[in-house]
Protein backbone atom coordinates (compact mmCIF):
# COMPACT_ATOMS: atom_id res chain seq x y z
CA UNK A 1 0.00 0.00 0.00
CA UNK A 2 1.27 3.48 -0.85
CA UNK A 3 0.42 6.98 0.17
CA UNK A 4 1.19 10.35 -1.38
CA UNK A 5 1.42 13.46 0.82
CA UNK A 6 1.52 16.90 -0.76
CA UNK A 7 3.52 19.08 1.65
CA UNK A 8 2.05 22.37 0.40
CA UNK A 9 -1.47 21.07 1.08
CA UNK A 10 -0.40 19.99 4.55
CA UNK A 11 1.18 23.41 5.15
CA UNK A 12 -1.96 25.25 4.18
CA UNK A 13 -4.16 22.90 6.17
CA UNK A 14 -2.06 22.62 9.30
CA UNK A 15 -0.60 26.11 9.59
CA UNK A 16 -2.12 28.81 7.39
CA UNK A 17 -4.05 28.70 4.11
CA UNK A 18 -2.13 31.74 2.89
CA UNK A 19 1.37 30.32 3.33
CA UNK A 20 3.34 28.84 0.45
CA UNK A 21 6.79 29.03 2.03
CA UNK A 22 8.14 26.45 4.41
CA UNK A 23 10.00 28.75 6.78
CA UNK A 24 10.56 28.82 10.58
CA UNK A 25 10.81 25.97 13.06
CA UNK A 26 7.30 26.24 14.48
CA UNK A 27 5.90 25.95 10.94
CA UNK A 28 8.10 22.95 10.23
CA UNK A 29 7.10 21.30 13.50
CA UNK A 30 3.38 21.81 12.73
CA UNK A 31 3.77 20.36 9.24
CA UNK A 32 5.74 17.39 10.57
CA UNK A 33 3.08 16.69 13.19
CA UNK A 34 0.40 16.72 10.49
CA UNK A 35 2.45 14.37 8.30
CA UNK A 36 3.07 12.04 11.25
CA UNK A 37 -0.67 11.95 11.90
CA UNK A 38 -1.20 10.86 8.31
CA UNK A 39 1.49 8.20 8.72
CA UNK A 40 -0.12 6.83 11.87
CA UNK A 41 -3.35 5.73 10.29
CA UNK A 42 -4.87 2.44 11.33
CA UNK A 43 -3.47 0.67 8.27
CA UNK A 44 -0.23 2.49 7.65
CA UNK A 45 1.12 2.36 4.11
CA UNK A 46 4.42 0.64 3.47
CA UNK A 47 5.74 3.48 1.32
CA UNK A 48 4.73 7.10 1.76
CA UNK A 49 5.93 9.73 -0.68
CA UNK A 50 6.37 13.26 0.62
CA UNK A 51 5.90 15.63 -2.32
CA UNK A 52 7.59 19.06 -2.24
CA UNK A 53 6.57 20.13 -5.75
CA UNK A 54 4.05 22.69 -4.46
CA UNK A 55 6.48 24.23 -1.98
CA UNK A 56 7.92 27.59 -2.88
CA UNK A 57 10.73 28.27 -0.41
CA UNK A 58 12.22 25.82 2.10
CA UNK A 59 14.60 27.15 4.73
CA UNK A 60 17.09 25.20 6.87
CA UNK A 61 14.89 25.28 9.95
CA UNK A 62 11.92 23.75 8.16
CA UNK A 63 14.09 21.24 6.31
CA UNK A 64 15.43 20.08 9.67
CA UNK A 65 12.04 20.04 11.43
CA UNK A 66 10.21 18.21 8.64
CA UNK A 67 12.60 15.99 6.73
CA UNK A 68 15.41 15.32 9.19
CA UNK A 69 13.11 14.69 12.16
CA UNK A 70 10.77 12.47 10.13
CA UNK A 71 13.76 10.40 9.03
CA UNK A 72 15.16 10.32 12.55
CA UNK A 73 11.92 8.93 13.88
CA UNK A 74 11.88 6.29 11.13
CA UNK A 75 15.46 5.20 11.70
CA UNK A 76 15.44 5.35 15.50
CA UNK A 77 12.11 3.60 16.02
CA UNK A 78 11.53 1.09 13.22
CA UNK A 79 7.91 0.05 12.95
CA UNK A 80 6.30 -3.33 12.41
CA UNK A 81 5.45 -3.80 9.63
CA UNK A 82 8.24 -1.86 7.97
CA UNK A 83 7.37 1.59 6.74
CA UNK A 84 9.37 3.79 4.41
CA UNK A 85 9.28 7.42 3.34
CA UNK A 86 10.46 8.65 -0.04
CA UNK A 87 10.55 12.16 -1.45
CA UNK A 88 9.83 13.90 -4.74
CA UNK A 89 9.37 17.34 -6.25
CA UNK A 90 12.46 18.91 -4.70
CA UNK A 91 14.16 21.71 -6.64
CA UNK A 92 17.81 22.72 -6.46
CA UNK A 93 17.15 25.42 -3.88
CA UNK A 94 15.26 22.93 -1.69
CA UNK A 95 18.24 20.61 -1.97
CA UNK A 96 20.61 23.27 -0.62
CA UNK A 97 18.70 23.22 2.66
CA UNK A 98 18.05 19.48 2.66
CA UNK A 99 21.64 18.46 1.99
CA UNK A 100 22.84 20.66 4.81
CA UNK A 101 20.48 19.16 7.38
CA UNK A 102 21.07 15.58 6.21
CA UNK A 103 24.83 16.09 6.43
CA UNK A 104 24.50 17.58 9.90
CA UNK A 105 22.53 14.60 11.19
CA UNK A 106 24.26 11.91 9.08
CA UNK A 107 20.95 10.95 7.46
CA UNK A 108 20.15 9.98 3.89
CA UNK A 109 16.93 9.65 1.94
CA UNK A 110 15.54 8.20 -1.26
CA UNK A 111 14.06 10.72 -3.67
CA UNK A 112 12.73 10.57 -7.17
CA UNK A 113 14.60 12.35 -9.96
CA UNK A 114 12.87 12.17 -13.35
CA UNK A 115 11.09 8.99 -12.37
CA UNK A 116 14.19 7.26 -11.02
CA UNK A 117 15.05 6.75 -7.34
CA UNK A 118 18.25 8.43 -6.16
CA UNK A 119 20.04 8.83 -2.85
CA UNK A 120 20.48 12.19 -1.18
CA UNK A 121 22.68 12.71 1.85
CA UNK A 122 25.86 11.12 3.19
CA UNK A 123 26.36 7.42 2.48
CA UNK A 124 29.58 5.42 2.49
CA UNK A 125 31.06 4.22 -0.80
CA UNK A 126 30.17 0.69 0.21
CA UNK A 127 26.56 1.63 0.92
CA UNK A 128 26.32 3.49 -2.36
CA UNK A 129 27.62 0.51 -4.40
CA UNK A 130 25.20 -1.89 -2.69
CA UNK A 131 22.30 0.53 -3.12
CA UNK A 132 23.07 0.89 -6.84
CA UNK A 133 22.91 -2.88 -7.29
CA UNK A 134 19.63 -3.13 -5.37
CA UNK A 135 18.15 -0.35 -7.49
CA UNK A 136 19.26 -2.03 -10.71
CA UNK A 137 18.45 -5.64 -9.83
CA UNK A 138 15.94 -5.49 -6.99
CA UNK A 139 14.26 -7.36 -5.55
CA UNK A 140 17.55 -9.13 -5.02
CA UNK A 141 19.09 -11.30 -2.27
CA UNK A 142 22.31 -10.50 -0.47
CA UNK A 143 24.26 -13.35 -2.08
CA UNK A 144 23.54 -11.97 -5.57
CA UNK A 145 24.60 -8.47 -4.51
CA UNK A 146 27.79 -9.85 -2.98
CA UNK A 147 28.55 -11.81 -6.14
CA UNK A 148 27.99 -8.79 -8.36
CA UNK A 149 30.29 -6.63 -6.23
CA UNK A 150 32.89 -9.36 -5.67
CA UNK A 151 32.45 -9.23 -1.88
CA UNK A 152 31.91 -11.83 0.82
CA UNK A 153 28.32 -12.64 1.74
CA UNK A 154 28.90 -11.50 5.34
CA UNK A 155 30.14 -8.12 4.19
CA UNK A 156 27.16 -7.55 1.89
CA UNK A 157 24.69 -8.72 4.53
CA UNK A 158 26.14 -6.16 6.94
CA UNK A 159 25.96 -3.33 4.42
CA UNK A 160 22.42 -4.19 3.28
CA UNK A 161 21.36 -4.37 6.90
CA UNK A 162 22.81 -0.91 7.45
CA UNK A 163 20.92 0.39 4.40
CA UNK A 164 17.71 -1.18 5.73
CA UNK A 165 18.23 0.39 9.18
CA UNK A 166 18.71 3.75 7.46
CA UNK A 167 15.40 3.09 5.60
CA UNK A 168 17.15 3.26 2.22
CA UNK A 169 16.24 -0.28 1.10
CA UNK A 170 13.23 -2.47 1.89
CA UNK A 171 13.25 -6.13 2.84
CA UNK A 172 10.55 -8.01 0.96
CA UNK A 173 9.66 -11.68 0.53
CA UNK A 174 11.52 -11.57 -2.80
CA UNK A 175 14.68 -9.88 -1.48
CA UNK A 176 15.97 -6.33 -1.07
CA UNK A 177 14.44 -3.54 -3.11
CA UNK A 178 14.53 0.25 -3.22
CA UNK A 179 11.43 2.08 -1.96
CA UNK A 180 9.92 3.92 -4.88
CA UNK A 181 8.03 7.18 -4.93
CA UNK A 182 4.36 7.24 -5.72
CA UNK A 183 3.01 9.84 -8.11
CA UNK A 184 0.10 12.00 -7.01
CA UNK A 185 -3.28 10.94 -8.25
CA UNK A 186 -6.84 12.04 -7.56
CA UNK A 187 -8.41 10.30 -4.62
CA UNK A 188 -5.19 9.56 -2.78
CA UNK A 189 -4.87 11.13 0.65
CA UNK A 190 -2.90 14.37 0.69
Amino acid sequence: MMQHIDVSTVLQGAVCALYSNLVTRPTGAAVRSAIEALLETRHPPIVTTIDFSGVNLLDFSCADEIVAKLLLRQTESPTVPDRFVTFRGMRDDHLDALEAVLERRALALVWEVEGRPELLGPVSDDEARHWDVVRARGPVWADMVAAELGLTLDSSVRTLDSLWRRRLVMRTDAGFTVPRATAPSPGRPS
Partner: protein
Amino acid sequence: MTSVISVPPSLDEQTFEHVVEQLAPLAPDEKVLFDARHARWASPFGLTALLAAAQSRAERPSFAAPENADTASYWARTGFFRHAAELFELHGTIPRGRDGHESDVLLEITPVTQTDDVHAVVGRIQQKAADILHGQLKLETAATMGFGMTLSEACQNIVEHAGCGGWVAVQTYSFRKRLGRRVVVIAVCDAGIGFRRSLESSPSHRHDDRWNDARALESAVVHAVSRFRHGDAGRGQGLAGIKRFTTRWDGKLSVRSGTARIAMIPSWDEDEPMREGLAPFPGAQVQIMIPERLPGDPKPSAAAGARGRIR
Protein backbone atom coordinates in the same frame (compact mmCIF):
# COMPACT_ATOMS: atom_id res chain seq x y z
CA MET B 1 20.32 66.90 31.73
CA THR B 2 20.04 65.51 28.22
CA SER B 3 23.10 63.93 26.60
CA VAL B 4 23.40 64.57 22.87
CA ILE B 5 24.40 61.63 20.69
CA SER B 6 25.71 62.87 17.39
CA VAL B 7 24.58 60.73 14.45
CA PRO B 8 27.32 60.66 11.77
CA PRO B 9 26.54 62.28 8.39
CA SER B 10 26.94 58.88 6.74
CA LEU B 11 25.50 56.21 9.00
CA ASP B 12 26.44 52.64 8.25
CA GLU B 13 27.74 49.55 10.02
CA GLN B 14 31.18 51.11 10.60
CA THR B 15 30.11 54.60 11.63
CA PHE B 16 27.38 53.29 13.91
CA GLU B 17 30.28 52.50 16.27
CA HIS B 18 30.53 56.25 16.92
CA VAL B 19 26.93 56.18 18.12
CA VAL B 20 27.63 53.19 20.37
CA GLU B 21 30.77 54.82 21.80
CA GLN B 22 28.75 57.89 22.79
CA LEU B 23 25.95 55.78 24.30
CA ALA B 24 28.08 53.30 26.23
CA PRO B 25 29.11 55.55 29.15
CA LEU B 26 25.53 56.69 29.78
CA ALA B 27 23.17 55.08 32.26
CA PRO B 28 20.20 53.40 30.53
CA ASP B 29 17.75 55.79 32.16
CA GLU B 30 19.68 58.92 31.23
CA LYS B 31 17.83 61.24 28.89
CA VAL B 32 19.38 61.14 25.42
CA LEU B 33 18.89 63.10 22.21
CA PHE B 34 19.99 61.44 18.98
CA ASP B 35 20.99 64.35 16.80
CA ALA B 36 20.65 63.31 13.15
CA ARG B 37 20.17 66.86 11.80
CA HIS B 38 23.36 66.65 9.75
CA ALA B 39 22.85 63.11 8.54
CA ARG B 40 22.86 62.79 4.73
CA TRP B 41 22.78 59.05 4.21
CA ALA B 42 22.08 55.86 6.14
CA SER B 43 22.36 52.21 5.22
CA PRO B 44 19.62 49.77 6.25
CA PHE B 45 21.99 48.68 9.03
CA GLY B 46 22.29 52.26 10.25
CA LEU B 47 18.53 52.81 10.34
CA THR B 48 17.61 49.51 11.99
CA ALA B 49 20.48 49.89 14.47
CA LEU B 50 19.19 53.35 15.42
CA LEU B 51 15.85 51.76 16.29
CA ALA B 52 17.67 49.13 18.35
CA ALA B 53 19.57 51.91 20.10
CA ALA B 54 16.27 53.47 21.13
CA GLN B 55 14.99 50.05 22.19
CA SER B 56 18.00 49.73 24.51
CA ARG B 57 17.13 52.86 26.47
CA ALA B 58 15.05 52.76 29.65
CA GLU B 59 14.12 56.41 29.19
CA ARG B 60 12.37 57.31 25.91
CA PRO B 61 15.04 59.17 23.89
CA SER B 62 14.56 62.19 21.64
CA PHE B 63 15.45 62.25 17.98
CA ALA B 64 16.25 65.25 15.82
CA ALA B 65 15.43 64.37 12.22
CA PRO B 66 17.76 65.12 9.29
CA GLU B 67 17.47 68.70 8.11
CA ASN B 68 18.21 67.78 4.51
CA ALA B 69 14.82 67.32 2.88
CA ASP B 70 15.95 64.57 0.50
CA THR B 71 17.52 62.60 3.36
CA ALA B 72 14.48 62.96 5.57
CA SER B 73 12.20 62.04 2.69
CA TYR B 74 14.25 58.93 1.93
CA TRP B 75 14.29 57.83 5.57
CA ALA B 76 10.54 58.27 5.60
CA ARG B 77 10.15 56.08 2.54
CA THR B 78 12.16 53.33 4.22
CA GLY B 79 9.56 53.35 7.02
CA PHE B 80 12.08 54.62 9.57
CA PHE B 81 10.00 57.43 11.05
CA ARG B 82 6.90 55.28 11.41
CA HIS B 83 8.76 52.93 13.78
CA ALA B 84 10.86 55.71 15.29
CA ALA B 85 7.68 57.50 16.36
CA GLU B 86 6.95 54.61 18.71
CA LEU B 87 10.40 54.71 20.30
CA PHE B 88 11.60 58.33 20.18
CA GLU B 89 10.19 61.76 20.80
CA LEU B 90 10.63 63.07 17.29
CA HIS B 91 11.75 66.63 16.60
CA GLY B 92 12.16 68.51 13.34
CA THR B 93 10.32 68.13 10.07
CA ILE B 94 9.09 64.58 9.58
CA PRO B 95 7.97 63.92 6.01
CA ARG B 96 5.20 61.50 5.30
CA GLY B 97 6.50 58.28 3.78
CA ARG B 98 4.76 56.31 1.09
CA ASP B 99 5.30 52.69 1.95
CA GLY B 100 7.21 50.43 -0.38
CA HIS B 101 7.41 52.79 -3.35
CA GLU B 102 11.15 53.25 -3.33
CA SER B 103 12.62 51.21 -6.16
CA ASP B 104 15.80 50.28 -4.27
CA VAL B 105 14.03 49.45 -1.00
CA LEU B 106 13.29 45.76 -1.32
CA LEU B 107 11.86 45.62 2.14
CA GLU B 108 11.11 48.72 4.15
CA ILE B 109 12.02 48.59 7.81
CA THR B 110 9.80 45.88 9.27
CA PRO B 111 9.42 44.81 12.89
CA VAL B 112 10.04 41.14 13.66
CA THR B 113 8.71 39.74 16.91
CA GLN B 114 7.09 36.42 16.07
CA THR B 115 7.03 33.57 13.57
CA ASP B 116 4.21 35.09 11.52
CA ASP B 117 6.38 38.14 10.91
CA VAL B 118 9.01 35.94 9.28
CA HIS B 119 6.39 34.45 6.93
CA ALA B 120 5.17 37.94 6.09
CA VAL B 121 8.69 39.25 5.40
CA VAL B 122 9.63 36.32 3.17
CA GLY B 123 6.30 36.41 1.35
CA ARG B 124 6.44 40.14 0.70
CA ILE B 125 9.92 40.24 -0.67
CA GLN B 126 9.96 37.35 -3.09
CA GLN B 127 8.81 38.85 -6.37
CA LYS B 128 10.70 42.07 -5.89
CA ALA B 129 13.81 40.14 -4.84
CA ALA B 130 13.66 38.08 -8.02
CA ASP B 131 13.37 41.23 -10.14
CA ILE B 132 16.22 43.03 -8.43
CA LEU B 133 18.65 40.17 -7.77
CA HIS B 134 18.35 38.77 -11.28
CA GLY B 135 17.41 41.91 -13.19
CA GLN B 136 19.64 44.52 -11.57
CA LEU B 137 22.39 42.62 -9.79
CA LYS B 138 22.69 39.94 -12.48
CA LEU B 139 22.68 37.10 -9.95
CA GLU B 140 21.54 33.72 -11.19
CA THR B 141 17.89 32.93 -10.55
CA ALA B 142 19.00 30.33 -7.97
CA ALA B 143 20.12 33.23 -5.78
CA THR B 144 16.55 34.40 -5.24
CA MET B 145 15.50 31.38 -3.19
CA GLY B 146 18.77 31.34 -1.29
CA PHE B 147 18.22 34.99 -0.53
CA GLY B 148 14.77 34.21 0.88
CA MET B 149 16.20 31.40 3.03
CA THR B 150 18.91 33.72 4.30
CA LEU B 151 16.40 36.42 5.14
CA SER B 152 14.19 33.89 6.90
CA GLU B 153 17.00 32.50 9.03
CA ALA B 154 18.32 35.95 9.92
CA CYS B 155 14.86 37.04 11.10
CA GLN B 156 14.36 33.81 13.05
CA ASN B 157 17.42 34.67 15.12
CA ILE B 158 15.41 37.52 16.59
CA VAL B 159 12.33 35.38 17.26
CA GLU B 160 14.29 32.53 18.83
CA HIS B 161 17.14 34.27 20.60
CA ALA B 162 16.68 37.99 21.16
CA GLY B 163 14.06 37.85 23.88
CA CYS B 164 12.46 40.94 22.37
CA GLY B 165 11.51 42.22 18.94
CA GLY B 166 13.85 43.64 16.33
CA TRP B 167 13.82 45.07 12.83
CA VAL B 168 14.79 43.95 9.36
CA ALA B 169 15.35 46.00 6.22
CA VAL B 170 16.55 45.08 2.75
CA GLN B 171 17.85 47.58 0.25
CA THR B 172 20.08 47.88 -2.78
CA TYR B 173 22.54 50.69 -3.25
CA SER B 174 25.75 51.51 -5.02
CA PHE B 175 28.70 50.57 -2.82
CA ARG B 176 31.28 52.74 -4.50
CA LYS B 177 33.58 53.16 -1.49
CA ARG B 178 35.05 49.67 -1.60
CA LEU B 179 33.52 47.86 -4.49
CA GLY B 180 32.27 50.17 -7.20
CA ARG B 181 29.23 47.97 -7.69
CA ARG B 182 25.66 47.78 -6.59
CA VAL B 183 24.95 45.59 -3.60
CA VAL B 184 21.88 44.20 -1.92
CA VAL B 185 21.99 44.43 1.86
CA ILE B 186 19.98 42.68 4.54
CA ALA B 187 20.17 44.29 7.98
CA VAL B 188 18.64 42.64 11.04
CA CYS B 189 19.07 44.42 14.37
CA ASP B 190 17.75 43.99 17.87
CA ALA B 191 18.69 45.10 21.37
CA GLY B 192 17.91 41.78 23.02
CA ILE B 193 20.07 39.45 25.07
CA GLY B 194 22.77 38.95 22.43
CA PHE B 195 24.77 35.86 21.49
CA ARG B 196 26.75 35.47 24.72
CA ARG B 197 23.76 35.42 27.03
CA SER B 198 21.76 33.27 24.61
CA LEU B 199 24.50 30.61 24.58
CA GLU B 200 24.99 30.88 28.34
CA SER B 201 21.36 29.83 28.80
CA SER B 202 22.11 26.39 27.30
CA PRO B 203 22.39 23.55 29.87
CA SER B 204 25.49 22.34 28.05
CA HIS B 205 27.28 25.69 28.27
CA ARG B 206 30.65 25.53 30.03
CA HIS B 207 32.08 28.82 31.19
CA ASP B 208 35.85 29.36 31.18
CA ASP B 209 38.19 32.33 31.60
CA ARG B 210 38.25 33.03 27.88
CA TRP B 211 34.46 33.15 27.51
CA ASN B 212 33.26 36.52 26.28
CA ASP B 213 31.26 38.09 23.43
CA ALA B 214 33.94 37.29 20.86
CA ARG B 215 34.05 33.59 21.81
CA ALA B 216 30.26 33.50 21.76
CA LEU B 217 30.22 34.91 18.22
CA GLU B 218 32.90 32.41 17.16
CA SER B 219 30.86 29.56 18.61
CA ALA B 220 27.66 30.61 16.86
CA VAL B 221 28.95 31.90 13.52
CA VAL B 222 32.00 29.69 12.94
CA HIS B 223 31.04 26.51 14.81
CA ALA B 224 27.23 26.71 14.43
CA VAL B 225 26.64 26.30 18.15
CA SER B 226 23.15 27.16 19.35
CA ARG B 227 21.66 27.27 22.81
CA PHE B 228 19.18 24.67 21.53
CA ARG B 229 21.91 22.24 20.41
CA HIS B 230 21.62 20.55 23.81
CA GLY B 231 19.24 17.71 22.95
CA ASP B 232 18.72 18.78 19.34
CA ALA B 233 21.72 18.31 17.07
CA GLY B 234 19.93 19.98 14.18
CA ARG B 235 20.04 23.42 15.74
CA GLY B 236 22.48 26.12 14.75
CA GLN B 237 22.10 25.59 11.02
CA GLY B 238 20.53 28.97 10.30
CA LEU B 239 23.72 30.99 10.62
CA ALA B 240 25.65 28.22 8.87
CA GLY B 241 23.22 28.50 5.95
CA ILE B 242 23.54 32.28 5.88
CA LYS B 243 27.32 31.92 5.80
CA ARG B 244 27.12 29.41 2.96
CA PHE B 245 24.83 31.61 0.86
CA THR B 246 26.98 34.68 1.47
CA THR B 247 30.20 32.89 0.56
CA ARG B 248 28.65 31.35 -2.53
CA TRP B 249 27.75 34.75 -3.92
CA ASP B 250 31.02 36.43 -2.88
CA GLY B 251 29.22 38.42 -0.23
CA LYS B 252 30.06 39.66 3.23
CA LEU B 253 28.49 38.68 6.52
CA SER B 254 29.09 40.57 9.74
CA VAL B 255 27.57 40.05 13.15
CA ARG B 256 27.99 42.41 16.09
CA SER B 257 26.97 41.47 19.60
CA GLY B 258 27.97 42.95 22.94
CA THR B 259 31.56 44.10 22.68
CA ALA B 260 32.61 42.06 19.63
CA ARG B 261 32.03 41.87 15.91
CA ILE B 262 32.82 38.96 13.60
CA ALA B 263 32.92 39.16 9.82
CA MET B 264 33.22 36.73 6.92
CA ILE B 265 35.19 38.83 4.51
CA PRO B 266 35.28 38.46 0.71
CA SER B 267 38.36 39.32 -1.33
CA TRP B 268 36.98 42.74 -2.29
CA ASP B 269 36.84 43.96 1.31
CA GLU B 270 39.52 44.75 3.89
CA ASP B 271 37.54 44.48 7.09
CA GLU B 272 38.82 42.74 10.22
CA PRO B 273 37.58 39.16 10.79
CA MET B 274 37.14 39.77 14.52
CA ARG B 275 37.00 42.97 16.53
CA GLU B 276 36.99 42.73 20.30
CA GLY B 277 36.78 45.31 23.04
CA LEU B 278 34.20 47.45 21.24
CA ALA B 279 31.93 49.73 23.22
CA PRO B 280 29.14 47.53 24.58
CA PHE B 281 25.80 47.46 22.79
CA PRO B 282 23.03 45.00 23.63
CA GLY B 283 21.49 42.43 21.30
CA ALA B 284 22.68 41.33 17.89
CA GLN B 285 23.18 43.30 14.71
CA VAL B 286 23.59 41.37 11.49
CA GLN B 287 24.46 42.63 8.02
CA ILE B 288 24.56 40.53 4.86
CA MET B 289 25.88 42.19 1.72
CA ILE B 290 25.73 40.54 -1.71
CA PRO B 291 27.42 42.33 -4.63
CA GLU B 292 26.29 42.71 -8.22
CA ARG B 293 27.83 40.22 -10.62
CA LEU B 294 29.62 41.48 -13.70
CA PRO B 295 30.55 39.67 -16.91
CA GLY B 296 33.79 37.79 -16.36
CA ASP B 297 33.22 37.20 -12.64
CA PRO B 298 34.10 33.63 -11.61
CA LYS B 299 31.13 31.29 -11.33
CA PRO B 300 29.59 31.09 -7.88
CA SER B 301 30.92 28.28 -5.73
CA ALA B 302 28.78 25.14 -5.69
CA ALA B 303 26.11 24.67 -3.10
CA ALA B 304 27.21 22.76 -0.04
CA GLY B 305 27.18 19.03 -0.44
CA ALA B 306 26.33 19.15 -4.14
CA ARG B 307 28.80 16.34 -4.70
CA GLY B 308 26.39 13.81 -3.20
CA ARG B 309 23.21 15.10 -4.82
CA ILE B 310 22.91 12.63 -7.67
CA ARG B 311 25.60 10.07 -7.65
